[in-house]
């Protein structure tokens, strides 16, 4: 299975290596660097590569490549899933997954890797097994809804994240007011499939700490209420090598809740040299090397709609971009699950104490893209 792991930073330096079988020279990574070079953008590196004697499967997380070396046939998703699990574990342990964090904790990292794989086969990948910690009873769970929407297609995808701190072997059941909404679900292994199938109840003995209990998808038949609307006009003038930009955002179907952390990101065409804009609310930045315009709005005020307008200066002599850039919008709404999913109750069996329970709903924009 997984033979070796190399961690590579964005400069192409290998800063950590681990071998679970005999040692493989790090020169094997040269094939990867070649592909990396060719791809230009790190996102574009093919996850599966072939070399004369090995196969390289890599993931890109937090500006780092996790590159594993494989010698024989293995389901690629098996490796990819595992590598992401490794990254998740680092995140969980160190609160981050950057090179400096990993280098600072190299001994723990090594011990973790040693525990997670034996002879290339996953051994312990659960955070709670790895941590082996016990905490006082109290429970808090949050329903986080992620919303993805464009005028073209919209869907709701959500996760239920749990933070369980209960002693003993509590057997929990959780039910929803409206389980019919759920179109497609996937579970943490602790959830009993059959019980869900027959009764639409989540029954489980939770591991300690934070974990993702369930992810779900709301069928697209149910209309997705997109919480904001966007009015934009971006135009480039043939003469004078300049352009105009005007974006306004307003609330729509927020059910009385405030939209927070509103942020608009625009990938400008290459020809745009600079932006001279005024924002009625929040700040904007334009990075002319990456051509990224970021407008950080913050809270959406329904009385006074945020607006960003101004002119764009263009490179002269270059034909105008034929496609207007699309807008990516991030937002967050507290105390509202846009899917309408509601937790009905949570019961505990098997232990005698009374747990503290809580639930928190959040809506976040997923990949909200407005084509212009």
């Amino acid at each position, binding site marked *: 299975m997984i033979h070796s792991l190399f961690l590579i930073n964005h400069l192409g330096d290998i*800063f950590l290596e681990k071998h679970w079988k005999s040692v493989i020279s790090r020169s094997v990574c040269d094939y990867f660097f070649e592909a990396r070079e060719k791809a230009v953008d790190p996102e574009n590196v093919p996850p599966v590569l072939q070399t004369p004697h090995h196969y390289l499967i890599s993931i890109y997380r937090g500006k780092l490549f996790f590159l594993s070396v494989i010698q024989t046939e293995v389901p690629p998703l098996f490796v990819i899933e595992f590598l992401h699990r490794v990254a998740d574990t680092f995140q969980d342990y160190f609160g981050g997954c950057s090179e400096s964090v990993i280098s600072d904790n190299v*001994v723990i990292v090594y011990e973790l890797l040693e525990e997670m794989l034996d*002879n290339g086969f996953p051994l312990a990948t659960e955070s709670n097994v790895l941590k082996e910690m016990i905490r006082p009873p109290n429970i808090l769970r949050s329903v986080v809804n992620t919303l993805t929407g464009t005028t073209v*297609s919209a869907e709701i995808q959500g996760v239920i994240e749990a933070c369980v701190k209960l002693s003993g072997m509590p057997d929990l059941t959780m039910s929803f007011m409206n389980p019919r909404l759920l179109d497609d679900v996937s579970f943490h*292994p602790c959830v009993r499939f059959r019980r869900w199938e027959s009764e639409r109840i989540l029954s489980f003995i939770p591991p300690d700490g934070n974990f993702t209990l369930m992810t779900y998808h709301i069928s697209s038949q149910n209309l997705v209420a997109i919480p904001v609307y966007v009015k934009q006009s971006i135009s480039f003038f043939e003469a004078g090598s300049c352009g105009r930009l005007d974006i306004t955002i307003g609330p729509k179907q927020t059910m009385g809740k405030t939209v927070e952390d509103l942020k608009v990101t625009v990938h400008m065409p290459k020809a745009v040299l600079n932006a001279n804009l005024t924002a009625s609310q929040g700040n904007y930045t334009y990075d002319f090397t990456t051509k990224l315009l970021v407008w950080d709005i913050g809270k959406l005020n329904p009385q006074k709609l945020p607006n960003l307008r101004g002119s764009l200066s263009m490179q002269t002599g270059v034909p105008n971009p034929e496609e207007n850039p699309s807008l990516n919008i991030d937002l967050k709404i507290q105390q509202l699950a846009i899917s309408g999913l509601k937790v009905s109750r949570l019961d505990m069996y098997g232990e005698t104490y009374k747990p503290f329970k809580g639930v928190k709903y959040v809506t976040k924009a997923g990949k909200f893209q407005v084509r212009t």
Partner: protein
Amino acid sequence: MSTGVSYNDQGGAEAAVEAGQESTPTSSSTGAAFGLFSADFKKNEDLKEMLESNKESLKLEAMKRIVGLIAKGKSASELFPAVVKNVASKNIELKKLVYVYLVRYAEKQQDLALLSISTFQRALKDPNQFIRASALRVLSSIRVPIIVPIMMLAIKEAAADLSPYVRKTSAHAIQKLYSLDPDQKEQLIEVIEKLLKDKSTLVAGSVVMAFEEVCPDRIDLIHKNYRKLCNLLVDVEEWGQVVIISMLTRYARTQFTSPWTEGAEFDENKAFYDSDSEEKKDQTEAKPYIMDPDHRLLLRNTKPLLQSRNTAVVMAVAQLYWHLAPKHEVSIVTKSLVRLLRSHREVQYIVLQNIATMSIQRKGMFEPFIKSFYVRSTDATHIKTLKLEILTNLANEANISTILREFQTYVKSQDKAFAAATIQAIGRCATNISEVTDTCLNGLVLLLSNRDETVVAESIVVIKKLLQTQPTQHGDIIKHMAKLFDSVTVPMARASILWLMGEYCEKVPKIAPDVLRKMAKTFTAEEDIVKLQTVNLAAKLYLTNSKQTKLLTQYILNLGKYDQNYDIRDRTRFIRQLIVPNEKSGALSKYARRILLAPKPAPVLESAFKDRDRYQLGTLSHSLNLKATGYQELPDWPAVAPDHSVRNVEIVEPLRESAPIVGKTKQPKSDDKFYSDDEDEKEEEESDSSGSGSEDSSSSEESGSESEEESSEDSEKTSSDSGKSSSGSEKSSSESESDQKKKKKTKKAPQKKSKPAGDSDSDENGNGPVGQASSSSSESSSDSESDSESDSGSDSPAPKKKTEEKAKPKVAVNSKKEVSLLDLDDFSPAPTNAPKPSVLSQSLLSDLEGLSLSNITSTVQYSRAAYEMVK
């Protein structure tokens, strides 16, 4: 610690990288020798001192730094003697790090590594299971051939350990030992065989992994464990599930017959394909194919895993359904696969590849989810291309307009490689769906005035292909392209225009010679591919319009004759001989016109994923589209299913003896117990007498004894009926009665065995024992369930089915020692019926192959039903 690391990495890292880049990539797994750097050397001296001190804290600090060195890929091997001394340290933390070091360097310092062996041998006997396990892990990870016998011994002992965790470790150790010394294979297979019997969910995944690595061809080792593995599957850890599922996929392909085309092949096929195109909703009608219950068991038990959070598990189940399930059941995996598309970029990549392959054969599966494959501008290029591929595969008359609208957006993308791919995709849609060919063609013509070179070039190439498939009204388009000719610089596009001019020169008689004239001017500066097409155009024009073009053609042929490229020289020579009649040219030149201007078949625009289905889905080979090392070919279905009874698990002798012990009933009673259930159920249904969960060993004596008689009659009856070699019915019961019974039996007989399975299942789920009382009601529910299932699965004509099913209980009776494995634990008291093994003739037994297992089917149904009751 961190100071040590940072101190260390100055220059070291760069040096290492340099070294890595200089050395040519090889497969050899020698560690890079970075230890030559003097800085490291000096540094290691003080590490040695620290290790030799008496202070634990100093030693620990030293070990941490050494691990830092290892992580950087720098050599610390000269510290081996100093480190190995600490292997027996009491400090757990220190010990762990020493283990890390040992595993890394033991291979290089074999003699010194031997010093540590006795420590591990001692630890293998430790009362703490984790210490035993970790000792075995390290011992087996030290790749020192001399200790092979010690490892072998340790593995064998650990395989019999009381702790499942230690047994799991031993399963891992098997693979390590095998890669160290393949000669141990036979002995290792013995251990694998033993561990395969293990009932712990912890062990299952690891031992199957060992099986796959050491002896994947020994399918016979799986038979007896097949049902157990199926039933344990849900509770095995995620990684084990992936391995087990892929192994079982292969197994099923060797043991069961195809659910796809069995029986009335023609009708069947038609039904399948029809249903595909019609959203595959309609049930396939009656088919004589009956799925082996073990086959069904596998499908049923893997299905819940589609809800796993682990993407690899979901993919494994999806490929299992793809390769094993009846066609109309495959689509249940769609939703789960689409769910995976919201996962990480790398996951999307693999899943999209698999969907691309699937969507070629079965559009219907993914059509409802077409919006999931819309491209986002933030997607990576390879993701975009895959989505485009899938959208193209899914295009049909109904959705083509939506898809084309999407494509219009994509063509404008700033990612030009992607825009070009989109144009190709439009071309494919245009050829596949005749309704939109014109629309697409017009759209592509519009793109010819696009500013971007690659877009124009790609459009020309695609238009060229389309015009070939649609040989009407191209005059205008060709004229348009001729106008563009001067501005287009991409060679492939220029060549395409020239080819079009030549091919349809009679439709544009005025323009074609003019284009040739222009080409004559620039011939020498063109790319080879353009030159070849120029020669082509010249030849065709010479044949159709020699008056105007004779001189031009000769000029071009002369240029070509002296070209630097031999292909062009050859082509020129050939063309000249062909078109210019002279005494040497012989017969061919008479046919020049027919040769050059023959109508040519249109090119077929196909998916790049068309032939990927030769690889098992979800594999590395599929992903790379080439056979990876160690890829196991997925066997084709056998024409005739091998003996199914190999999967029956033998009842161990003691079990039979145990019957009297538990049930206070006399020996004969316990035999017939086996049947009594049937009777009871029957009674439940028909007459409302007795009934109620008589499975319980403490069932009412009366009903038991009654049914006893009946059932024995019944079974014998059945045997005599179905078996051609009837041994004469021992008791003659009234015909009508037995008939009735038979009928009922078809449904019920299977269930009785399943009962215990239900129990054990729920136990595994941690739900505590299922109340026996629940059994009766759950039975009835499972009854109906089994009915409906067998109906949907196989609506065979009633009589046939009856006889077959009738036979099932029969076999169970006769090959009396066989009982499904699940029974072992929970069912010890009951059902061995000793007396009648000899009743059945050999031939009858073989006739009944494939049938006896049906009880398993109901097993699962049963367990589900029971489960509900518990709650």
